[in-house]
């Protein structure tokens, strides 16, 4: 019988692969809007990984960190988009 902790570790591994795909897009995005999309993806993955680690290590206090990380990721994305609208980045 496969244990619960092993399955959560497996899911963390799959989420790490997905995060690596986001980082590849961050590296080879041709311009700044592509990298902004990749940044938003990476913040979502950070929230998901914090939730999985909270389940894995019996630490429900980490879920508050996930909430704060979600709000900060949204604010960062809005700042980048607003800056892009004002700048002349062609």
């Amino acid at each position, binding site marked *: 019988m496969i244990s619960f902790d092993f399955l959560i570790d497996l899911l963390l591994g799959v989420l790490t692969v*997905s995060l690596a*795909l986001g980082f590849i897009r961050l590296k080879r995005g041709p311009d700044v*809007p592509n990298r902004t*999309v990749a940044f938003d993806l990476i913040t979502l993955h950070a*929230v998901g990984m914090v939730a999985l680690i909270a389940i894995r290590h019996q630490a429900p206090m980490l*879920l508050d960190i*996930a909430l704060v990380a979600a709000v900060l990721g949204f604010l960062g994305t809005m700042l980048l*988009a*607003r800056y892009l*609208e004002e700048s002349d980045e062609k």
Partner: protein
Amino acid sequence: MTTLEAITIILATIGVLIMLISSYGVLRFPDVFMRMHAFSKAGTLGISCLILAAAVYYPEYLARMIVLVVLFFLTGPIATTAIARAALRASTPEDHLHLTINEMQDDGMIKKPRKRKKTG
């Protein structure tokens, strides 16, 4: 493995797989707008399934996690729309995806940003 843990595993697996598909779409699609489409819808659904898995596992945090899901559903479209406007202003689409009718060209119909009042 109890029933609660089984429900947690099922929800978390669905969420992680949807996020993996979303990341693959962001890596694979040829244009900024297709990437944003793949990321916004699928990413919001995947992270909501993951957060609901955490809420099933810790029932005392259920209210906070529902607040987080509502926050994602509210702020995801706002952020995506902001990036789309900025990308349309600041980047050029692919050659085979050129717009024949540009709805956002400057013909006086766009609201100008409000000028700030000078203080003092």
